[in-house]
């Protein structure tokens, strides 16, 4: 099996699993218990919290642990909107967002004025359009750091700087795909969400990072864990695994990314003159979004799956819905390109042999589909 759907989820690293097991065996205590075991567990929890904040260069921000990015996005977007509704209604969001952002905002569509920031053909948000749409009535801007469909990196630092002149606006960044793949400056971000299983951690652990705890209006009420912001017994083993996984995926990141860049270019070069195929530009070496023009992406995914190669149509979270992918639409693709698109996503452990097998597999499917395909 060759697994190239790492943007959907990654295989947990051995180190993260080891921490997970060790904590499960020796520090399984409830972090809210007052006996020594509980207090040791609580100290470990705080150490994990500090380590994750420092890895992201956000040492002075606050972090609460959640079950993952969807929960984090739900908590923070609801909190921010409810808090700011009295001051304005406009919410600006990129066209590239994940459903766990867009659907929360859609939920509020009768109360807010939801506007989408335009995207350049490279899949990056148009800063001029952002500036144009910003006004004194704007309360929230939400932009994902690294797009999960084509791998475009958003100018988070620049957006943060632009928003400095709009004191009322909250800036939310969904960094779920970015964390562990690219180092960005999140200094001016008011809230950041992330999820362990995207960077070789264990599923069921995530985080919400904020510069002001008051913005968080808890979704889960109960025993008062995480400073009353997210009740429920803390999943310490998975959280410790997440801290470990993040530290390890950030180690030698430049070298790791250079290696993936070579693999990425190898695929692109090989298919460069295939006239019935379209490859989207990407900034992150982890992503290749390519279309078999005329076919349905799902057919290509199935055909590759038969060959033991696992990739995805658009994004796994939305793979089963039949609507055209918003990101590919936003950057100006024609319908047949969007319909025929698949997403290949590498991991830091992807090998050259796997990349060669992928190229071979794609060639096989390209021949197999033959006349069904047509020119771009």
């Amino acid at each position, binding site marked *: 099996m060759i697994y190239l759907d790492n943007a959907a989820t990654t295989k947990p690293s051995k180190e993260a699993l080891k921490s997970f097991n060790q904590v499960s065996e020796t520090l399984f205590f409830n972090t809210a218990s007052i006996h020594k075991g509980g*207090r040791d567990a609580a100290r470990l929890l705080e150490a994990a919290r500090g380590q994750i904040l420092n890895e992201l260069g956000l040492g002075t921000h606050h972090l609460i642990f959640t079950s993952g990015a969807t929960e984090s996005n739900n908590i923070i977007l609801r909190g921010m909107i409810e808090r700011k509704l009295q001051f304005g209604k406009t919410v600006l969001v990129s066209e590239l967002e994940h459903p766990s952002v867009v659907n929360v905002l859609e939920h509020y569509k009768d109360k807010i004025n939801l506007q989408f920031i335009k995207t350049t053909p490279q899949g990056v948000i148009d800063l001029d359009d952002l500036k144009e749409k910003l006004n004194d009535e704007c309360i929230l801007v939400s932009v994902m750091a690294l797009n999960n469909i084509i791998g475009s990196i958003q100018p988070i630092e620049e957006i943060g700087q632009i928003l400095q002149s709009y004191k009322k606006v909250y800036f939310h960044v969904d960094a779920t795909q970015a964390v562990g793949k690219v180092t960005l400056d999140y200094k001016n971000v008011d809230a950041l969400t992330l999820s362990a299983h995207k960077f070789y951690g264990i599923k069921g652990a995530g985080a919400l990072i904020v510069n002001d705890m008051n913005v968080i209006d808890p979704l889960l009420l109960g025993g008062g864990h995480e400073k009353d912001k997210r009740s429920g017994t803390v999943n310490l083993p998975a959280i*410790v695994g997440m801290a470990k996984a993040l530290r390890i995926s950030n180690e030698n990141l430049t070298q790791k990314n250079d290696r993936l860049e070579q693999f990425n270019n190898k695929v692109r070069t090989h298919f460069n003159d295939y006239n019935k195929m379209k490859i989207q530009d990407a900034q992150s070496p982890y992503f290749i979004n390519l279309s078999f023009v005329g076919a349905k992406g799902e057919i290509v995914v199935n055909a590759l799956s038969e060959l033991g190669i696992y990739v995805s149509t658009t994004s796994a979270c939305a793979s089963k819905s039949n609507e055209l992918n918003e990101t590919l639409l936003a950057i100006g693709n024609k319908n047949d390109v969007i319909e025929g698109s698949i997403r290949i996503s590498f991991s830091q452990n992807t090998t050259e042999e796997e990349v060669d097998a992928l190229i071979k597999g794609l060639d096989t499917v390209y021949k197999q589909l033959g006349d069904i395909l047509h020119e771009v």
Partner: protein
Amino acid sequence: MKYDHILVRYGELTLKTKNRMMFVGKLKSRMERALNSTEAVVRANRDRAYIDLNGEDETQVINKIKHISGILSMSPVVKIEKSIDEMKEYAVKFANGFEKESTFKIEVKRADKNFPLKTHDIQQLLGTEVLTHEDHLIVDVRKPDYKLMVEVRFDAIYMYSDVVLGIGGLPLGTGGKALLMLSGGIDSPVAGFEIMKRGVEIEAIHFHSPPYTSEMSLDKVKKLIDIMSKKTGEHIKLHVIPFTDLQTTVHDHVPDNLSMTTTRRIMLTLAERLATEIGAEAIVNGENLGQVASQTLTSMFAINEVTSMPVLRPLLTLEKNEIIKKAVEFETYETSILPYEDCCTIFKPKAPKTRPNLEKVKQFESKMDITEKLEIALKNHTIYTDEENNSEEFTDLL
């Protein structure tokens, strides 16, 4: 804006003349200690200090030093070539960060008198340049929202506009040493910070009565020490005194409504002995006149009677909300309000005397012999510093 330096202005130490460099030296070493995990380099001269950021983030560097006493204020600075074009370019960059429709002023200090443009010329040139690019801004030389400072020095031109206030005071280590009575509540850490601001080093004393007071309440006090140490760049020593035996003795011999007074007297006695042992010249506490029964003037009179050492009470006359505000600013507040039993709350009498009679107190005390118990408590005390906390106990897991 990419800043390359932090300009640090000194506080009260500028009033010193002959021994000023001693104060500057102490301040410099405090800043260096706070920044030792970074690439930033401190250069301190008689009137101000410059921190070369060497690529470090200016906000993080400021956050690391802003609680060091002796610093009046800090400004992130860009150092540019002595060229008119460059000056213009940066003036616009700075103005770009000013809020819409706000007012500004350009202030020039021209130390290099050979620079071709005069002070007034520079002001006019840069003002015009800013207004051409940012036409929503308005010049106001009297009460501007923003000041863009331009300093023409011999080596380069320095430009800045933000001024971040420090805490002022005198550099730590220039004013001797005191012992802080740290309970775990809101007030005592603030009292510690206030005294440290005057250049006085502190160690702390805490009374622990297990199992009546929990390990969590001791952890909380340790955490306060961690925060205070981090903020001041110190490794503040915490002396933990085992107090159960003394506390139960008082409980057995002194009536409920006077037990608080006696307990405090014993605490102060122990504090004085420890202070002498560590070479401290004063005791500091967070008492606030009239706040609780032990802090009425009559109570203070009865409690203070056990020592002739100065007892400093920097919060004596502050309003509670002023103290809370300071605790929030020093970031001890959230820890202080954690709901664990501390040494003051467990044996709390239902109705302590607000006007305890010293003679009566002494009468009851004369019936209990605690001489040996005091010795034992002092002898068995343990010491904690934040360095212990930095032990890498979880390195394997994380």
